Protein backbone atom coordinates (compact mmCIF):
# COMPACT_ATOMS: atom_id res chain seq x y z
CA UNK A 1 0.00 0.00 0.00
CA UNK A 2 1.54 3.29 -0.96
CA UNK A 3 0.35 5.85 1.53
CA UNK A 4 3.02 8.50 1.31
CA UNK A 5 3.98 7.73 4.87
CA UNK A 6 6.29 5.22 6.46
CA UNK A 7 5.65 1.49 6.47
CA UNK A 8 6.99 -0.56 9.36
CA UNK A 9 9.62 -1.93 6.98
CA UNK A 10 10.89 1.55 6.18
CA UNK A 11 10.95 2.44 9.85
CA UNK A 12 13.02 -0.65 10.50
CA UNK A 13 15.44 0.52 7.81
CA UNK A 14 15.76 3.88 9.58
CA UNK A 15 16.12 2.26 12.99
CA UNK A 16 19.07 0.25 11.72
CA UNK A 17 21.10 3.46 11.82
CA UNK A 18 21.04 3.25 15.63
CA UNK A 19 24.48 2.68 17.11
CA UNK A 20 25.06 -0.54 19.02
CA UNK A 21 28.21 -1.97 20.52
CA UNK A 22 29.71 -5.15 19.12
CA UNK A 23 32.73 -7.23 19.94
CA UNK A 24 34.32 -8.05 16.60
CA UNK A 25 36.29 -11.21 16.03
CA UNK A 26 38.10 -9.91 12.97
CA UNK A 27 40.37 -6.99 12.22
CA UNK A 28 39.19 -4.13 9.99
CA UNK A 29 40.51 -0.65 9.21
CA UNK A 30 38.42 2.48 9.64
CA UNK A 31 35.25 2.59 7.47
CA UNK A 32 34.34 5.94 6.00
CA UNK A 33 30.54 6.03 5.97
CA UNK A 34 28.07 8.75 5.05
CA UNK A 35 26.82 8.78 8.61
CA UNK A 36 30.30 9.04 10.13
CA UNK A 37 33.44 6.95 10.53
CA UNK A 38 33.18 3.46 11.98
CA UNK A 39 35.97 1.40 13.43
CA UNK A 40 38.79 0.53 13.32
CA UNK A 41 38.05 -2.94 14.61
CA UNK A 42 40.35 -5.11 16.66
CA UNK A 43 39.35 -8.59 17.78
CA UNK A 44 37.56 -8.61 21.18
CA UNK A 45 37.69 -4.82 21.57
CA UNK A 46 34.12 -3.41 21.86
CA UNK A 47 33.34 -0.87 19.17
CA UNK A 48 30.15 1.12 18.38
CA UNK A 49 28.69 0.45 14.93
CA UNK A 50 25.33 1.01 13.23
CA UNK A 51 22.88 -1.81 13.79
CA UNK A 52 22.80 -2.79 10.12
CA UNK A 53 26.56 -3.31 10.11
CA UNK A 54 26.29 -5.42 13.24
CA UNK A 55 23.69 -7.59 11.51
CA UNK A 56 25.85 -7.79 8.40
CA UNK A 57 28.91 -8.90 10.37
CA UNK A 58 26.89 -11.29 12.45
CA UNK A 59 25.67 -13.04 9.30
CA UNK A 60 29.37 -13.63 8.51
CA UNK A 61 29.98 -14.73 12.11
CA UNK A 62 32.47 -11.93 12.65
CA UNK A 63 31.07 -10.37 15.81
CA UNK A 64 29.08 -10.75 18.99
CA UNK A 65 26.63 -8.15 20.22
CA UNK A 66 26.72 -6.24 23.48
CA UNK A 67 22.97 -6.23 24.06
CA UNK A 68 21.59 -2.76 24.94
CA UNK A 69 20.88 -2.45 28.67
CA UNK A 70 17.14 -1.98 28.26
CA UNK A 71 16.73 -5.10 26.13
CA UNK A 72 16.64 -7.56 29.03
CA UNK A 73 13.89 -9.18 31.07
CA UNK A 74 14.21 -7.01 34.20
CA UNK A 75 14.14 -3.55 32.57
CA UNK A 76 11.36 -4.62 30.20
CA UNK A 77 9.26 -5.90 33.09
CA UNK A 78 9.69 -2.52 34.73
CA UNK A 79 8.75 -0.71 31.52
CA UNK A 80 5.68 -2.87 31.15
CA UNK A 81 4.60 -2.19 34.71
CA UNK A 82 5.13 1.55 34.30
CA UNK A 83 3.18 1.50 31.06
CA UNK A 84 0.39 -0.40 32.75
CA UNK A 85 0.15 2.02 35.66
CA UNK A 86 0.41 5.22 33.69
CA UNK A 87 -2.64 6.84 32.08
CA UNK A 88 -0.43 8.42 29.40
CA UNK A 89 2.37 7.06 27.24
CA UNK A 90 5.57 6.50 29.16
CA UNK A 91 8.93 7.34 27.71
CA UNK A 92 10.61 4.43 25.94
CA UNK A 93 14.39 3.86 26.07
CA UNK A 94 14.56 4.73 22.38
CA UNK A 95 11.89 5.80 19.97
CA UNK A 96 12.78 2.78 17.81
CA UNK A 97 12.42 0.29 20.65
CA UNK A 98 10.21 -2.15 18.80
CA UNK A 99 12.20 -2.10 15.56
CA UNK A 100 15.50 -2.53 17.34
CA UNK A 101 14.24 -5.41 19.44
CA UNK A 102 12.82 -7.06 16.32
CA UNK A 103 16.09 -6.79 14.42
CA UNK A 104 18.27 -7.84 17.33
CA UNK A 105 16.08 -10.79 18.28
CA UNK A 106 15.97 -11.96 14.69
CA UNK A 107 19.71 -11.81 14.08
CA UNK A 108 21.17 -12.33 17.54
CA UNK A 109 18.35 -14.29 19.15
CA UNK A 110 20.45 -17.38 19.79
CA UNK A 111 23.10 -15.54 21.80
CA UNK A 112 20.70 -13.57 24.03
CA UNK A 113 19.53 -15.21 27.26
CA UNK A 114 15.72 -15.44 27.67
CA UNK A 115 15.14 -14.19 24.16
CA UNK A 116 11.61 -15.61 24.11
CA UNK A 117 10.68 -13.71 27.26
CA UNK A 118 12.12 -10.54 25.78
CA UNK A 119 10.15 -11.02 22.59
CA UNK A 120 6.95 -11.56 24.54
CA UNK A 121 7.56 -8.55 26.79
CA UNK A 122 8.22 -6.13 23.92
CA UNK A 123 5.07 -7.37 22.21
CA UNK A 124 3.13 -6.88 25.47
CA UNK A 125 4.40 -3.34 25.82
CA UNK A 126 3.47 -2.57 22.23
CA UNK A 127 -0.01 -4.03 22.74
CA UNK A 128 -0.53 -1.97 25.89
CA UNK A 129 0.48 1.18 24.08
CA UNK A 130 -1.67 0.44 21.05
CA UNK A 131 -4.70 -0.13 23.27
CA UNK A 132 -3.96 3.17 24.97
CA UNK A 133 -3.65 4.85 21.60
CA UNK A 134 -7.00 3.49 20.43
CA UNK A 135 -8.70 4.60 23.63
CA UNK A 136 -7.32 8.13 23.33
CA UNK A 137 -8.21 8.33 19.63
CA UNK A 138 -11.75 7.32 20.53
CA UNK A 139 -11.91 10.01 23.22
CA UNK A 140 -10.52 12.55 20.76
CA UNK A 141 -13.04 11.71 18.06
CA UNK A 142 -15.96 11.78 20.46
CA UNK A 143 -14.86 14.95 22.18
CA UNK A 144 -14.95 18.44 20.79
CA UNK A 145 -11.24 19.19 21.01
CA UNK A 146 -9.61 20.59 17.91
CA UNK A 147 -6.19 19.09 18.55
CA UNK A 148 -4.59 16.42 20.67
CA UNK A 149 -1.12 16.34 22.12
CA UNK A 150 0.47 12.92 22.47
CA UNK A 151 3.93 12.63 23.97
CA UNK A 152 6.31 9.71 23.73
CA UNK A 153 4.51 7.94 20.94
CA UNK A 154 6.68 6.09 18.44
CA UNK A 155 6.43 5.92 14.68
CA UNK A 156 5.53 2.23 14.52
CA UNK A 157 2.63 2.81 16.88
CA UNK A 158 1.37 5.62 14.68
CA UNK A 159 1.62 3.26 11.71
CA UNK A 160 -1.20 1.19 13.17
CA UNK A 161 -3.87 3.81 12.53
CA UNK A 162 -2.38 6.87 10.89
CA UNK A 163 -4.49 6.84 7.72
CA UNK A 164 -7.62 5.73 9.52
CA UNK A 165 -7.28 8.55 12.03
CA UNK A 166 -6.41 11.37 9.64
CA UNK A 167 -9.15 10.48 7.20
CA UNK A 168 -11.62 9.95 10.00
CA UNK A 169 -10.85 13.41 11.32
CA UNK A 170 -11.19 14.81 7.80
CA UNK A 171 -14.63 13.29 7.50
CA UNK A 172 -15.65 14.49 10.94
CA UNK A 173 -14.56 18.00 10.04
CA UNK A 174 -16.68 17.92 6.89
CA UNK A 175 -19.72 16.73 8.82
CA UNK A 176 -19.22 19.33 11.54
CA UNK A 177 -18.99 22.19 9.08
CA UNK A 178 -21.69 20.77 6.79
CA UNK A 179 -23.97 23.43 5.38
CA UNK A 180 -21.91 26.32 6.65
CA UNK A 181 -20.19 26.75 3.31
CA UNK A 182 -23.18 25.99 1.08
CA UNK A 183 -25.78 28.50 2.15
CA UNK A 184 -29.29 27.77 0.88
CA UNK A 185 -29.44 29.44 -2.49
CA UNK A 186 -33.16 29.41 -3.25
CA UNK A 187 -33.44 33.14 -2.64
CA UNK A 188 -30.27 33.94 -4.55
CA UNK A 189 -30.28 34.74 -8.24
CA UNK A 190 -29.19 32.13 -10.77
CA UNK A 191 -25.93 33.99 -11.36
CA UNK A 192 -25.12 33.93 -7.68
CA UNK A 193 -25.76 30.24 -7.41
CA UNK A 194 -23.55 29.44 -10.37
CA UNK A 195 -20.63 31.34 -8.92
CA UNK A 196 -21.16 29.46 -5.70
CA UNK A 197 -21.18 26.11 -7.37
CA UNK A 198 -18.33 26.67 -9.81
CA UNK A 199 -15.82 27.41 -7.10
CA UNK A 200 -16.57 25.06 -4.24
CA UNK A 201 -12.92 24.66 -3.31
CA UNK A 202 -12.42 28.20 -2.14
CA UNK A 203 -15.70 28.11 -0.27
CA UNK A 204 -14.60 24.97 1.55
CA UNK A 205 -11.29 26.49 2.48
CA UNK A 206 -12.78 29.66 3.84
CA UNK A 207 -15.31 27.66 5.81
CA UNK A 208 -12.45 25.84 7.51
CA UNK A 209 -11.08 29.16 8.60
CA UNK A 210 -14.30 30.79 9.69
CA UNK A 211 -16.57 27.90 10.61
CA UNK A 212 -18.71 28.91 13.52
CA UNK A 213 -18.83 25.33 14.79
CA UNK A 214 -15.09 25.31 15.06
CA UNK A 215 -15.12 28.40 17.24
CA UNK A 216 -17.71 27.09 19.62
CA UNK A 217 -15.86 23.82 20.01
CA UNK A 218 -12.70 25.70 20.96
CA UNK A 219 -14.55 27.58 23.66
CA UNK A 220 -16.34 24.64 25.15
Amino acid at each position, binding site marked *: *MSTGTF*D*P*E*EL*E*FLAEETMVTIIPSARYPL*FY*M*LGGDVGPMEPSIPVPVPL*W*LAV*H*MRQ*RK*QCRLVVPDWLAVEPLLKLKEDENNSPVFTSMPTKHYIEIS*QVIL*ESFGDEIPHSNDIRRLT*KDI*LDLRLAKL*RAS*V*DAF*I*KGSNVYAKVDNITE*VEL*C*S*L*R*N*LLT*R*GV*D*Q*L*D*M*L*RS*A*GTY*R*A*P*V*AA*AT*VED*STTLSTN*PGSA*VRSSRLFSS*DRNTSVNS
Partner: protein
Amino acid sequence: MKEFYLATTHETYLSLSDIMVTDEKVACTVTVDFAGLGYIHPSSSSEAGDLTVGTTLDLPLWMATLMYRRQYATIQIPPAYQEEARKILNVDPAVVDLRKECAGRFRWRFSENYYALGLYIIPFSLNDAKEIRRSLTSTFQHRFRKIMDWSNSTHRDTLTNLYNRLDRSEVQLLQMGKAEQTALSDWLDRRTKFLKASHLVKSAQSTRAQPQRTDSRKRARF
Protein backbone atom coordinates in the same frame (compact mmCIF):
# COMPACT_ATOMS: atom_id res chain seq x y z
CA MET B 1 -12.72 4.14 -7.05
CA LYS B 2 -9.79 3.85 -4.71
CA GLU B 3 -10.28 7.23 -3.09
CA PHE B 4 -13.78 6.89 -1.75
CA TYR B 5 -13.60 8.63 1.56
CA LEU B 6 -15.71 11.68 2.00
CA ALA B 7 -13.19 14.48 1.97
CA THR B 8 -11.99 13.84 -1.58
CA THR B 9 -15.28 12.80 -3.14
CA HIS B 10 -17.61 15.55 -2.11
CA GLU B 11 -18.39 17.97 -4.92
CA THR B 12 -15.65 16.75 -7.18
CA TYR B 13 -16.90 16.84 -10.74
CA LEU B 14 -15.38 13.62 -12.05
CA SER B 15 -15.64 11.61 -8.85
CA LEU B 16 -17.69 8.48 -9.54
CA SER B 17 -18.76 8.20 -5.93
CA ASP B 18 -20.01 11.77 -5.96
CA ILE B 19 -22.00 10.98 -9.10
CA MET B 20 -23.53 8.01 -7.31
CA VAL B 21 -24.47 10.17 -4.35
CA THR B 22 -26.10 12.87 -6.44
CA ASP B 23 -27.99 10.17 -8.33
CA GLU B 24 -29.98 9.26 -5.22
CA LYS B 25 -33.66 10.10 -5.51
CA VAL B 26 -35.28 12.76 -3.37
CA ALA B 27 -38.95 13.72 -3.28
CA CYS B 28 -39.70 17.13 -4.83
CA THR B 29 -42.85 19.16 -5.16
CA VAL B 30 -43.15 21.10 -8.38
CA THR B 31 -43.98 24.79 -7.91
CA VAL B 32 -44.64 25.76 -11.55
CA ASP B 33 -46.47 24.09 -14.43
CA PHE B 34 -44.35 22.23 -16.95
CA ALA B 35 -46.17 21.92 -20.24
CA GLY B 36 -45.98 18.47 -21.83
CA LEU B 37 -43.83 16.92 -19.13
CA GLY B 38 -46.62 14.89 -17.49
CA TYR B 39 -45.11 11.65 -18.80
CA ILE B 40 -42.21 11.73 -16.31
CA HIS B 41 -44.75 11.28 -13.52
CA PRO B 42 -46.73 8.15 -14.46
CA SER B 43 -49.57 8.55 -11.97
CA SER B 44 -50.24 12.11 -13.02
CA SER B 45 -53.91 12.46 -13.87
CA SER B 46 -53.44 15.43 -16.10
CA GLU B 47 -54.96 14.72 -19.53
CA ALA B 48 -53.03 17.46 -21.24
CA GLY B 49 -49.83 15.72 -20.29
CA ASP B 50 -48.66 18.68 -18.26
CA LEU B 51 -46.75 18.45 -15.01
CA THR B 52 -48.90 20.62 -12.76
CA VAL B 53 -48.10 22.66 -9.67
CA GLY B 54 -48.12 20.64 -6.49
CA THR B 55 -47.18 17.31 -8.08
CA THR B 56 -44.74 15.37 -5.92
CA LEU B 57 -42.24 13.15 -7.66
CA ASP B 58 -38.84 11.55 -7.06
CA LEU B 59 -35.95 13.19 -8.85
CA PRO B 60 -32.23 12.55 -8.72
CA LEU B 61 -30.54 14.93 -6.33
CA TRP B 62 -28.50 16.69 -9.02
CA MET B 63 -31.65 17.58 -10.92
CA ALA B 64 -33.61 18.46 -7.79
CA THR B 65 -30.85 20.88 -6.78
CA LEU B 66 -31.01 22.69 -10.11
CA MET B 67 -34.80 22.90 -9.98
CA TYR B 68 -34.63 24.22 -6.41
CA ARG B 69 -32.15 26.92 -7.36
CA ARG B 70 -34.39 28.11 -10.18
CA GLN B 71 -37.39 27.95 -7.82
CA TYR B 72 -39.15 25.35 -9.94
CA ALA B 73 -39.51 22.89 -7.07
CA THR B 74 -39.14 22.42 -3.34
CA ILE B 75 -37.22 19.51 -1.89
CA GLN B 76 -38.51 17.26 0.87
CA ILE B 77 -35.97 16.04 3.36
CA PRO B 78 -35.62 12.24 2.90
CA PRO B 79 -36.99 10.20 5.81
CA ALA B 80 -33.49 9.01 6.70
CA TYR B 81 -32.68 12.52 7.90
CA GLN B 82 -35.97 13.33 9.61
CA GLU B 83 -36.65 13.26 13.29
CA GLU B 84 -37.83 9.67 13.42
CA ALA B 85 -34.59 8.42 11.89
CA ARG B 86 -32.52 10.70 14.05
CA LYS B 87 -34.14 9.16 17.11
CA ILE B 88 -33.17 5.68 15.94
CA LEU B 89 -29.59 6.80 15.46
CA ASN B 90 -29.60 8.53 18.80
CA VAL B 91 -30.26 5.32 20.71
CA ASP B 92 -27.15 3.47 19.58
CA PRO B 93 -25.52 4.69 16.38
CA ALA B 94 -23.05 1.83 16.32
CA VAL B 95 -25.60 -0.95 15.73
CA VAL B 96 -27.73 0.70 13.06
CA ASP B 97 -27.61 -1.07 9.71
CA LEU B 98 -27.36 1.81 7.27
CA ARG B 99 -28.41 -0.32 4.29
CA LYS B 100 -31.43 -2.18 5.66
CA GLU B 101 -34.98 -1.11 4.97
CA CYS B 102 -36.87 0.23 7.98
CA ALA B 103 -40.58 -0.23 8.45
CA GLY B 104 -42.58 2.75 9.57
CA ARG B 105 -45.53 4.64 8.26
CA PHE B 106 -43.99 3.84 4.90
CA ARG B 107 -40.91 1.87 3.90
CA TRP B 108 -37.69 3.80 3.91
CA ARG B 109 -34.07 3.16 4.63
CA PHE B 110 -30.90 4.95 5.54
CA SER B 111 -28.53 5.31 2.65
CA GLU B 112 -25.29 3.62 1.74
CA ASN B 113 -24.18 7.17 1.10
CA TYR B 114 -25.61 8.36 4.38
CA TYR B 115 -22.98 10.96 5.25
CA ALA B 116 -22.34 12.19 1.72
CA LEU B 117 -26.03 12.60 0.98
CA GLY B 118 -26.48 14.31 4.33
CA LEU B 119 -23.95 16.94 3.34
CA TYR B 120 -26.07 17.71 0.28
CA ILE B 121 -29.34 17.63 2.17
CA ILE B 122 -28.41 19.97 5.00
CA PRO B 123 -28.59 23.22 2.97
CA PHE B 124 -32.18 22.40 2.02
CA SER B 125 -33.33 21.74 5.57
CA LEU B 126 -33.77 25.26 6.80
CA ASN B 127 -35.40 24.46 10.12
CA ASP B 128 -33.48 21.49 11.42
CA ALA B 129 -30.13 21.82 9.63
CA LYS B 130 -28.47 22.07 13.00
CA GLU B 131 -30.17 18.92 14.24
CA ILE B 132 -29.23 16.94 11.14
CA ARG B 133 -25.64 18.10 11.37
CA ARG B 134 -25.48 17.10 15.02
CA SER B 135 -26.98 13.73 14.23
CA LEU B 136 -24.54 13.05 11.37
CA THR B 137 -21.60 14.09 13.49
CA SER B 138 -22.48 12.08 16.56
CA THR B 139 -23.37 9.04 14.44
CA PHE B 140 -19.93 9.12 12.86
CA GLN B 141 -18.22 9.77 16.18
CA HIS B 142 -19.76 6.70 17.76
CA ARG B 143 -19.35 4.43 14.77
CA PHE B 144 -15.70 5.36 14.35
CA ARG B 145 -14.75 3.42 17.48
CA LYS B 146 -16.39 0.34 16.00
CA ILE B 147 -14.55 0.78 12.72
CA MET B 148 -11.29 1.11 14.61
CA ASP B 149 -11.99 -2.05 16.62
CA TRP B 150 -13.04 -4.04 13.57
CA SER B 151 -9.98 -3.01 11.64
CA ASN B 152 -7.90 -4.21 14.54
CA SER B 153 -9.48 -7.53 15.32
CA THR B 154 -11.69 -8.82 12.56
CA HIS B 155 -10.67 -11.61 10.27
CA ARG B 156 -10.68 -10.77 6.59
CA ASP B 157 -13.56 -13.16 5.80
CA THR B 158 -15.97 -11.66 8.31
CA LEU B 159 -15.24 -8.15 7.08
CA THR B 160 -17.41 -8.75 4.03
CA ASN B 161 -20.45 -9.18 6.25
CA LEU B 162 -19.66 -5.90 7.96
CA TYR B 163 -19.40 -4.05 4.68
CA ASN B 164 -23.08 -4.76 4.02
CA ARG B 165 -24.08 -2.72 7.04
CA LEU B 166 -21.81 0.27 6.64
CA ASP B 167 -21.85 3.50 4.76
CA ARG B 168 -19.49 3.62 1.76
CA SER B 169 -17.13 6.03 3.42
CA GLU B 170 -17.07 3.80 6.49
CA VAL B 171 -16.23 0.80 4.33
CA GLN B 172 -13.36 2.79 2.88
CA LEU B 173 -12.10 3.72 6.33
CA LEU B 174 -12.39 0.14 7.50
CA GLN B 175 -10.41 -1.18 4.54
CA MET B 176 -7.75 1.42 5.11
CA GLY B 177 -7.51 0.62 8.80
CA LYS B 178 -7.39 -3.09 8.05
CA ALA B 179 -4.55 -2.62 5.57
CA GLU B 180 -2.53 -0.68 8.12
CA GLN B 181 -3.11 -3.23 10.84
CA THR B 182 -2.20 -6.08 8.52
CA ALA B 183 1.00 -4.33 7.48
CA LEU B 184 1.97 -3.90 11.12
CA SER B 185 1.14 -7.42 12.25
CA ASP B 186 2.87 -8.93 9.20
CA TRP B 187 5.96 -6.96 10.05
CA LEU B 188 5.81 -8.04 13.69
CA ASP B 189 5.66 -11.67 12.54
CA ARG B 190 8.66 -10.98 10.28
CA ARG B 191 6.70 -11.50 7.09
CA THR B 192 8.47 -8.49 5.73
CA LYS B 193 8.48 -7.29 2.20
CA PHE B 194 11.53 -6.31 0.21
CA LEU B 195 12.32 -2.62 0.23
CA LYS B 196 12.91 -1.21 -3.21
CA ALA B 197 15.26 1.63 -4.08
CA SER B 198 13.60 4.97 -4.57
CA HIS B 199 12.46 5.87 -8.05
CA LEU B 200 14.92 8.80 -8.05
CA VAL B 201 17.86 6.54 -7.35
CA LYS B 202 16.84 4.15 -10.09
CA SER B 203 16.42 6.84 -12.72
CA ALA B 204 19.74 8.40 -11.72
CA GLN B 205 21.40 5.03 -12.20
CA SER B 206 19.83 4.36 -15.56
CA THR B 207 20.94 7.72 -17.01
CA ARG B 208 24.57 7.05 -16.23
CA ALA B 209 26.77 5.61 -18.95
CA GLN B 210 28.26 3.06 -16.61
CA PRO B 211 25.98 2.12 -13.75
CA GLN B 212 27.72 2.46 -10.42
CA ARG B 213 26.67 1.23 -7.06
CA THR B 214 25.46 4.19 -5.09
CA ASP B 215 24.90 2.35 -1.85
CA SER B 216 27.88 3.02 0.38
CA ARG B 217 27.06 -0.10 2.31
CA LYS B 218 27.77 -2.32 -0.63
CA ARG B 219 31.20 -0.78 -1.04
CA ALA B 220 32.43 -1.91 2.33
CA ARG B 221 34.60 -4.92 1.58
CA PHE B 222 34.64 -7.96 3.76
